[in-house]
């Protein structure tokens, strides 16, 4: 049954890709929607059946290149299939309305639709296939198709630049993975991912650790761990809104899937691995949010927040890994469980935020926070949905972000009271990091929501377009609903999570019933409490309404300190809102400032520009690249545009490739001969 449904989904995708060129623009939209929706339904059914009936495993014979191809659908795969499918469902339905603006670019849309379907199918297949060659091939399809969907507006130079950056970085990721897989193949002779287990079990922990770090670096590029994050803030702002949502919601999560998969299979020194992941994750979280605050582009701000949330997920994974190392079951459950739940939660609120940002973009044609304002009156539904997303991403109750952060915090505090000195210290600094991340996210989203949606418009030119049509809004409502539901009923996905986590540590089911019930009870209390909180807000508000019904409520101007003609330009801006923070963080951030001050008797126009520079990008990418270019420039004479010369290079290369082995053999023989003398 499972085999059949996987095949149907793949066949459907291939059929759709073949059919799309023969349809009209409208037909293409409907077909894409239909295929994605059908695929999502089938895949969700598959995932649920795995959760009820247990993991599935079957083999394809494969070819002489790949060997037999194992397909294993376990709980981890099923969880990620569910997360991916939901975001693609909402993304596709939202995207169809979003792309209406571009309906005149028919060919471009066709390519977009094809890539979109390929992207979904390849993401799902990555979760299933466990043969390294096939895995890499599908990974490549995923990387290419996501590149194509990102550069939809390829006639803009910025889009193309960001797109190529993304393409190159995805391939560095593939390079790491390929090296790791070749190593495995050479050592074990098998393409099956299970070879990771058999190989590392027979080696010293150091070898396992090296293999793990190789895999981790590869997947970290996809996930956006610092310092491999630089493609994210470039690619997100230029992609269409639904693609940004999907990219931030699930494409980067496939990196997390990879890390979790390797962690599940690898047998190594889990304690060192755990400390390593924790360290990287805390840095990632802090760095992401610190840069997010000073961004002026709404989508770029959200992209940096994806990095931050990857950090939070990483903290959960690190904690769980430490739990695996120390054999502490509560740590495993709250660490990995929290991380997995945060994967789902982040995919929800981040896609919601990006879709809202998309609405803002199509209504105002700008993403510059400084020129927006007062949008909640123009587009109230988008505004309140963005608010729900903001509250959730800050981890505030009663929304879903709080539940996963609570999970992780609970594990951290549990770790604090049980452990030795180094462990306690590391946990303390992780708590410190997580708290500061939370606080900075708080600043960032008060700024993002407050400046974009509240107050009055900072530039008059907004044309109030009616973009809040029901067909565009309902996928967003669906996400918002799920955010609130997870916040109020935290136990909703717990049986799933326990299944997934028990795969990492087979003994988990034997966790003392008492402890287990305690953790679950805590969550139930949190849920009820959140209900109470909502009730309390409504109660107090109604109390206020009742009382003020009998009083006069007058309308008036905002208090301007007795200044009678306030203008929208006098409002607090985003830059001024984060000014004190910027001053405080100045040693770590680097901010480029341009200033023209008023001088002389008849001053010219004054202006001030600030632009946040990603220091990591400068040091790790820009500078080495510049160096590389300088070195390679000295070989520029080779590229002389002369076809004969190129043919000569070809011959030289072929000759060298053929002769070199023989030549080396001869040299070896001579050396041996000399040695014998």
């Amino acid at each position: 049954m499972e085999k059949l449904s996987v095949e149907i989904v793949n066949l459907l995708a291939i059929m759709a890709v073949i059919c799309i060129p023969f349809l009209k623009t409208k037909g293409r939209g409907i077909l894409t929607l239909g295929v994605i929706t059908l695929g999502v339904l089938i895949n969700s059914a598959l995932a649920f059946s795995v959760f009820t009936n247990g993991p599935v495993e079957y083999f394809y014979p494969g070819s002489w290149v790949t060997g037999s191809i194992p397909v294993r659908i376990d709980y981890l795969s099923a969880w990620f299939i569910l997360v991916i499918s939901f975001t693609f469902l909402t993304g596709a339905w939202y995207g169809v309305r979003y792309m209406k603006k571009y309906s005149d670019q028919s060919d471009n849309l066709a390519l977009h639709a094809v890539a979109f379907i390929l992207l979904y199918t390849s993401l799902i297949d990555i979760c299933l296939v466990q043969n390294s060659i096939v895995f890499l091939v599908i990974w490549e399809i995923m990387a290419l198709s996501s590149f194509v969907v990102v550069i939809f507006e390829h006639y803009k130079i910025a889009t193309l630049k960001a797109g190529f950056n993304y393409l190159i970085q995805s391939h560095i990721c593939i390079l790491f993975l390929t090296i790791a897989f070749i190593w495995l193949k050479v050592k074990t002779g098998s393409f099956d991912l299970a070879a990771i287990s058999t190989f590392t079990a027979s080696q010293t922990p150091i070898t396992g650790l090296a293999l793990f770090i190789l895999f981790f670096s590869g997947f970290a590029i996809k996930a956006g761990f610092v310092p491999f994050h630089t493609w994210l803030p470039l690619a997100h702002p230029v992609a269409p809104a639904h693609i940004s949502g999907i990219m931030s919601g699930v494409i980067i999560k496939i990196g997390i899937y990879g890390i979790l998969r390797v962690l599940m299979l690898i047998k190594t020194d889990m304690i060192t691995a755990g400390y390593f992941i924790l360290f990287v994750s805390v840095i990632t979280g802090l760095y992401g949010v610190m840069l997010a605050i000073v961004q002026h582009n709404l989508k770029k701000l959200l992209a940096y927040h994806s990095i931050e949330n990857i950090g939070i997920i990483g903290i959960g994974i690190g904690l769980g890994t430490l739990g695996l190392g120390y054999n502490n079951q509560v740590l495993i459950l709250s660490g990995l469980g929290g991380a997995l739940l945060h994967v789902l939660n982040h995919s929800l609120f981040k896609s919601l935020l990006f879709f809202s940002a998309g609405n803002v973009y199509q209504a105002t044609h700008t993403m510059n926070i400084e020129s927006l304002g007062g949008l909640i009156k123009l587009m109230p539904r988008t505004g309140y949905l963005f608010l729900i997303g903001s509250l959730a991403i800050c981890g505030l109750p009663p929304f879903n972000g709080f539940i996963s952060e609570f999970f992780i915090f609970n594990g951290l505090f549990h770790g604090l009271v049980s452990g030795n000195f180094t462990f306690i210290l590391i946990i303390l600094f992780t708590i410190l990091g997580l708290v500061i991340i939370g606080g900075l996210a708080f600043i960032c989203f008060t700024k993002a929501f407050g400046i974009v949606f509240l107050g009055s418009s900072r530039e008059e030119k907004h044309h109030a377009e009616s973009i809040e049509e029901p067909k565009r809004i309902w996928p967003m409502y669906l996400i918002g609903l799920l955010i609130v539901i997870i916040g109020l009923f935290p136990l909703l996905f717990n049986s799933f999570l326990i299944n997934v986590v028990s795969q990492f540590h087979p003994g988990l089911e034997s966790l003392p019933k008492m402890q287990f019930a305690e953790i679950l009870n805590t969550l139930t209390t949190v849920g009820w409490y959140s209900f109470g909180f909502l009730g309390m807000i409504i109660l107090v508000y109604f109390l206020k309404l009742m009382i003020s019904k009998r009083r006069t409520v007058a309308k008036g101007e905002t208090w301007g300190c007795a200044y009678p003609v306030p203008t929208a330009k006098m409002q607090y801006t985003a830059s001024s809102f984060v000014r004190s923070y910027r001053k405080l963080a100045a040693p770590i951030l680097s901010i480029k400032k341009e200033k023209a001050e008023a001088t002389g008797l008849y001053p010219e126009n004054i202006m001030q520009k600030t632009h946040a520079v990603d220091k990591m990008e400068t040091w790790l990418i820009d500078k080495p690249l510049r160096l590389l270019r300088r070195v390679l420039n000295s070989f520029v004479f080779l590229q002389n545009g002369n076809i004969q010369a190129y043919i000569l290079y070809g011959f030289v290369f072929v000759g060298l490739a053929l002769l070199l082995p023989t030549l080396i053999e001869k040299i070896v023989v001579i050396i041996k001969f000399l040695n014998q003398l």
Partner: protein
Amino acid sequence: MVSLILILLMSLFFSGFIIRTKSILSGRKGPGLFQPMFDIFRLWKKGSVVSTTTSFIFQIAPSAYFASVLMAVLMIPHGNNPGFISFNGDFIMFAYMLAFGKFLMIISALDTGSSFEGMGASREALFSMLVEPAFFILLGSFALFTGQTSFHEIFSTLHYGSHISYLLGGLASFVLVLIAMIENSRMPLDDPKTHLELTMIHEVMILDNSGFDLGTIMYTTNLKFAMYGAIISNFFIGILPLEISIPMFFIIQIGFAITVGIIESFMARFRMGHNPQFVFILTSVSLLIFFGVLLVLGKFA
């Protein structure tokens, strides 16, 4: 249950004590203990003026702010009597609950589109971010010290071991008094009695609130003070029986209020740019407590 009633009771005349202390120290007669509460009652009875720039968020924020503080109060235990709600890790939810209220207050300040209120909002967001680590490390140290992770269990098992716990309690009170001052935007950081918008934090955020909403916000401030006072008192009450612990609760709360009054009378407000350094002191003192706990537990490797 006990703690809820006690805190609500204390919140009625907490700021009365502060004002009284300040007036006595400056040689004035000063108003009665209940005068701040009378002012709030009067505000509750008044009508209001709402800016045309604002949206629904401005309307609901004060209510949500009050609700969030009230829900946080529900978690505070009274010595051996657990709060209304108590579960493992409740202090995490406590902190996030307060943050929710603050989030709405900050965006409601931005909702007015004023040139001043954003300034207060910006500072409030920054300082509350800086305070959070101190609170979490403090609670983390006590969690480590007692091996428990909920308010009630931490406080009820605090004094089973050596008397060093009272010393830790003293240090913790220092941190909490200052956290309360920062959270309520009182003297060393912010002067609620100033008349210049440029130097205010909390007061400038609520420039546009009037009538019932303003009253609610002012009452919430009192409630917050009483809540922090209750946490401080918990460091010393331990498992004492009610007939001793209730008078002790009031003594500590009034002592807290008088301390606030004294600080406000004799300290000048810091320059705004120096405030972050001051707030970092709290984090470092909390770290000191943490390492003290490690020392006491003999966990230094």
